[in-house]
């Protein structure tokens, strides 16, 4: 049994899972925003990065990790709301290219602002748990207390988002506003407010993601910390279906595991090639995504 947990295959699965939940979270943020406002938020990673900076760079380095995390989440939520009210609101109903250009531009602005304030020097974040892998019979298992914390945090975030959307009246309004804004308005749902809230929620999820990424990866926190993660999260969202939160999560985890195998058995340089190949194939075969719910659904 010990040999199983420390085997090469299991190491790839566990390592891939840890990366995969991060891609899943990024994909989830993208899906939340796409569903409510039909905008692909290319600045998602940069907004999350900025929130992480606010949580960990503005406060004293000695500040408690959890306090910094909470501040980062609040910063993310606020930034999401502000972004929707200022940048995004001008883009509704415009040709599809406008939001793409605007959000890519916003991404560059945010990264430049962060670099101007905090420089591009990498900053290492404190970690609340050890990043040293557990050992079994003298051999490492590809899972550390911190990695487990990452996975659990990701699951908690996903469950919270699911509960808010499926079981609260606020979630019902969020869904209604996304599905049919005109009818929702007639029913007294405050659609504009719901759009802002959708962005706040997605951006809060992003802040958690950025904090996890910046404290786990060798890169630490830099203005471009989220770029690579965002690219994979984006592919996960596209493969899983931009309209399907479940699809985005499943695709994120599967991609994480698949990339780990590719990196281990083929070559780590091949990962991006495989990722783009998967994206192209999935866009050709099922452009709406693997998991997009069929319109017919019987219970």
């Amino acid at each position, binding site marked *: 049994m010990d040999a199983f947990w420390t085997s090469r295959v299991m190491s790839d699965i566990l390592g891939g899972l840890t990366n995969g939940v991060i891609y899943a979270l990024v994909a989830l943020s993208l899906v939340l925003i796409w569903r409510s406002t039909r905008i692909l938020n290319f600045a998602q990673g940069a907004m999350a990065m900025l929130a992480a900076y606010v949580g960990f760079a503005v406060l004293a380095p000695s500040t408690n990790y959890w306090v910094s995390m909470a501040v980062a989440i609040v910063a993310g939520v606020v930034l999401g709301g502000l972004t929707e009210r200022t940048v995004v609101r001008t883009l509704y109903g415009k040709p599809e290219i406008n939001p793409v250009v605007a959000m890519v531009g916003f991404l560059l602005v945010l990264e430049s602002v962060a670099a101007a304030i905090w420089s591009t020097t990498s900053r290492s974040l404190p970690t609340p748990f050890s990043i040293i892998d557990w050992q079994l019979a003298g051999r490492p298992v590809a899972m550390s207390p911190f990695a487990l914390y990452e996975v659990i945090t990701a699951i908690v975030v996903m469950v919270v988002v699911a509960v808010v959307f499926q079981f*609260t*009246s*606020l979630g*019902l*309004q969020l*869904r*209604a506003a996304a*599905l*049919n804004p*005109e*009818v*929702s*308005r*007639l*029913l*007294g*749902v*405050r*659609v504009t407010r719901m759009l802002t809230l959708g962005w706040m929620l997605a951006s809060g999820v992003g802040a958690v993601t950025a904090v996890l990424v910046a404290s786990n990866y060798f890169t630490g926190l830099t203005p471009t910390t989220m770029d690579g993660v965002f690219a994979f999260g984006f592919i996960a969202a596209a493969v899983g279906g931009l309209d399907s939160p479940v699809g985005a999560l499943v695709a994120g985890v599967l991609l994480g595991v698949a990339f780990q195998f590719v990196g281990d058995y083929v070559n780590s340089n091949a990962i991006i090639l495989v990722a783009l190949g998967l994206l192209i194939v999935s866009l050709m075969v099922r452009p709406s995504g693997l998991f997009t*719910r069929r*319109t*017919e*659904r*019987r*219970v």
Partner: protein
Amino acid sequence: MLADPPAALLRLDAVSVDFGGLHALRDVSFAVEPGEIVGLIGPNGAGKTTVFNVICGFVKPTRGRVAFPSSGHHNLRPSQLASAGVARTLQGVGLFPHCSVLENVMAGGHNRPGGTFADALVATPRGVRSERQLRDDALALLERLGVADQAARFPSAIPYGVAKKVSLARALMGDPQLLLLDEPASGLDEAELEQFAAEITSLRAQMGILLVEHDMEFVMPLVDRLVVLNFGEVIATGPPAEVRHHAEVVAAYLGVDQ
């Protein structure tokens, strides 16, 4: 004819709507009193839907005024209707896909007083209570319309007649004083029509109702008053028995039909 104008739920004062050079509505005036069922009829293209859209604020009147005297509002935007006590059902039913029947009905009750926004966000006891209330009220309405057994199903899986009732229940969730029904009879079979008519009649104790309808057999016995439109103008108003014999109406509309 307007027995007590200040108490009317809805009053159109010489409303005109121009689309470019086209006069969609010209000097349309009528009112809906509390407890009254008013039918809006007319041949295709007469402007019935435009009247609804102008009441709901989807279309702005070029001239004239849409007043809601009992609540003191006029020319409302669509987003202000629910809180002003106005509910509308849509021609195409317009249920939310991927939301259960129960959720669809619950979605109609969000303008009611109760838990505040913050209560809903952090699930305070008050928020939870008002949410349970919302669910119970939605179920009660479905029960009343005889479709409670469909509560867990999705719009794509229910018959059209049921969807119509769900859409009515959703509109009623906001406790409206004025209910606007856009072609409530279309797509319903004989038995469903009878039931629907009885339901609408029973609502009059709590609200005034304005309905657009093609089906004359459905409208005639149901309404207290008819407003007949032709080419964007009101050509007759009055009880169905009178309007039926109105020469201009017969020529413009009923004559075509019979």
